[in-house]
């Protein structure tokens, strides 16, 4: 990613990545300032430096900062996960949402809310610990099943996508069943959470996704040049000294764990993993979405959509609905463009 550029395209990737990073900080500050009780940018910066009034400290440090940070981390996790799976399958449709990983994580999380939260009345503290684990188990299990079912001496990306769509349908059915037979309060918690929302976020939700992003991003970045080689096909990659199976395992594990972390923090926020890498790929004009820039743009998309939902849109629409409204037309546009049917390769 940030390795010395060896070509004009490499320079363009660097420019896009630096521009996205430079935009991130002001966007975060703006997002903290915006809301029902409007704060000035100066107030936000002063409070972050530790010189705000007690009421400003409550709003900024306890309410908005965790929400904005969580949104940025969730977006980064989804953007990076999407860039990894899209490159892995050489197809922009191959995102965690479509491959069933998101639905698997959602099923795990809903099961934790409905079963543990209901029957055993586990406190909110235990739930924040149990939810990420349940989401990770759901995501990993789904990924293993989908990958296994698509395997026929190699994984074909269209078979992977079709199996993923099937898995998504089945998992969504099970999730709906769990909600239907749940207690009313748990059911409404789960249903609200399933839309993808940052409204209930506190510091406790930030930590797991922060750890996931902090650990998995560097691991993913070590695979960057190998990902470029993998676009040439398995045989060429092997010829160039890539341990193809090990590389795949690292990519899939990173993508699945990032998705699980994001889903457990904010619910399944649709289309971020699909849209963010594709925006970056078009801006940078590269064969595959650059990883770091995809993560940063993912953060910008989620924080931007959440801020939009808190300020401009009436009645605080959940962020997942905003990203879906933006992302779905983009998906249709991409599908109808003939030139992109060949997708990445």
């Amino acid at each position, binding site marked *: 990613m940030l*390795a*010395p550029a*060896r*070509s*004009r*395209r490499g320079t363009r990737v660097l420019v896009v990545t630096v521009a996205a990073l430079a935009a991130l900080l002001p966007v975060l500050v703006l997002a903290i300032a915006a809301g029902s009780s409007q704060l000035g940018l100066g107030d936000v910066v002063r409070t972050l430096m530790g010189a705000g009034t007690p009421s400003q400290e409550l709003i900024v440090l306890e309410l908005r900062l965790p929400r904005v940070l969580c949104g940025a981390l969730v977006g980064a996790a989804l953007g990076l996960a999407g860039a990894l799976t899209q490159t892995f399958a*050489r197809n922009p449709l191959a995102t965690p949402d479509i491959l069933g990983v998101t639905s698997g994580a959602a099923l795990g999380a809903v099961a934790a809310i409905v079963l543990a939260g209901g029957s055993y009345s586990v406190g909110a503290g235990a739930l924040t610990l149990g939810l990420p684990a349940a989401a990770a188990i759901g995501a990993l299990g789904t990924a293993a099943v989908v990958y296994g079912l698509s395997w026929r001496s190699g994984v074909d990306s269209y078979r992977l996508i079709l199996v993923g769509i099937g898995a998504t349908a089945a998992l969504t059915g099970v999730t709906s069943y769990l909600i239907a037979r749940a207690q009313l309060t748990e059911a409404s918690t789960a249903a609200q959470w399933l839309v993808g929302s940052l409204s209930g976020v506190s510091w406790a939700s930030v930590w797991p996704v922060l750890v996931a992003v902090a650990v998995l991003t560097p691991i993913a970045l*070590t695979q960057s*040049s*190998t990902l*470029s*080689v993998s*676009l*040439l*096909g398995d*045989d*060429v990659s*092997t*010829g*160039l*000294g*890539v*341990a193809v199976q090990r590389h795949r395992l690292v990519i899939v594990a990173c993508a699945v764990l990032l998705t699980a972390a994001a889903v457990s923090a904010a619910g399944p926020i649709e289309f971020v993993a699909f849209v963010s890498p594709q925006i970056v*790929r078009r801006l940078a*004009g*590269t*064969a*595959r979405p650059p990883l770091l820039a995809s993560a940063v743009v993912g953060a910008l998309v989620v924080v931007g959509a959440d801020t939009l939902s808190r300020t401009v849109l009436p009645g605080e629409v959940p962020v997942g609905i905003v990203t879906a409204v933006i992302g779905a037309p983009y998906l249709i546009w991409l599908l109808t463009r003939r030139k992109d049917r*060949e997708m*990445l*390769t």
Partner: protein
Amino acid sequence: MTVTTTPALAARGVTLAYDQAVVFRELDLSIEPGRVTTLIGANGSGKSTLLKAFGRLLTPSAGGIELDGAPARSLPTRQIARRLAILPQKPLTPSATSVRDLVSRGRHPHQSLLRPWTEQDAAAVADALAATGMTELADRDAASLSGGQLQRAWIALVLAQQTPIILLDEPTTFLDLSHQLDVLHLVRSINAERGATVVMVLHDLSLAGRFSDRLVAVGRGRVLADGPPWEVLTPTVLRDAFDLDARVIADPCTGSPLVVPEDRLTYLS
């Protein structure tokens, strides 16, 4: 044939199979260094399978491949990639990738996190582009090239890898005769100038005879004939390996064997 030096590549009792279908059983074949060896055989004879095994794209179900006398299985794949390059039959050409970027990927086995892109890598890429006549097209999008240009770009990638052994699986497929000659002249010059050991698979027997030091005809799970072009391209071998009735005459241009199929009278009557 007798080999006095250590072979660049050797198959030792190699059995190759896809699932249950055995393609080769207990095959022994040595490739001498510094020469151009071409595998020929009918469709489905397993010549590409054998090349893949030499290039560790296919693991033998029995026996093993030796690289410069050492078992290839004991070597890390990255280390093999610094000694042996393979161009498979249908490589994927990525979109939005310039010829230079594509060829640069050939430096992958020489790079690592601690040793990123260097002047040496840039020199290897420039050298490979020049050798294949692709320097002027270096900034073009690879996906926009013609078939002949694209094949040369892929050969440049393999050259940029700077390995003493190069394996090419049907490097002339889908090219017109003139471009086939371009590619094969390039192969010969790589062999002559860099002393590279080349093993390739070719369909065109006369071109194989013209551009190779040694031909290996395979079929029915074994080596059917092995030797210099004039010893392998004989009517007897052609009937045995290809079920082809043909005369072999001296090529008026080079003196190499030229395969001329007999007229099939049944077709006319």
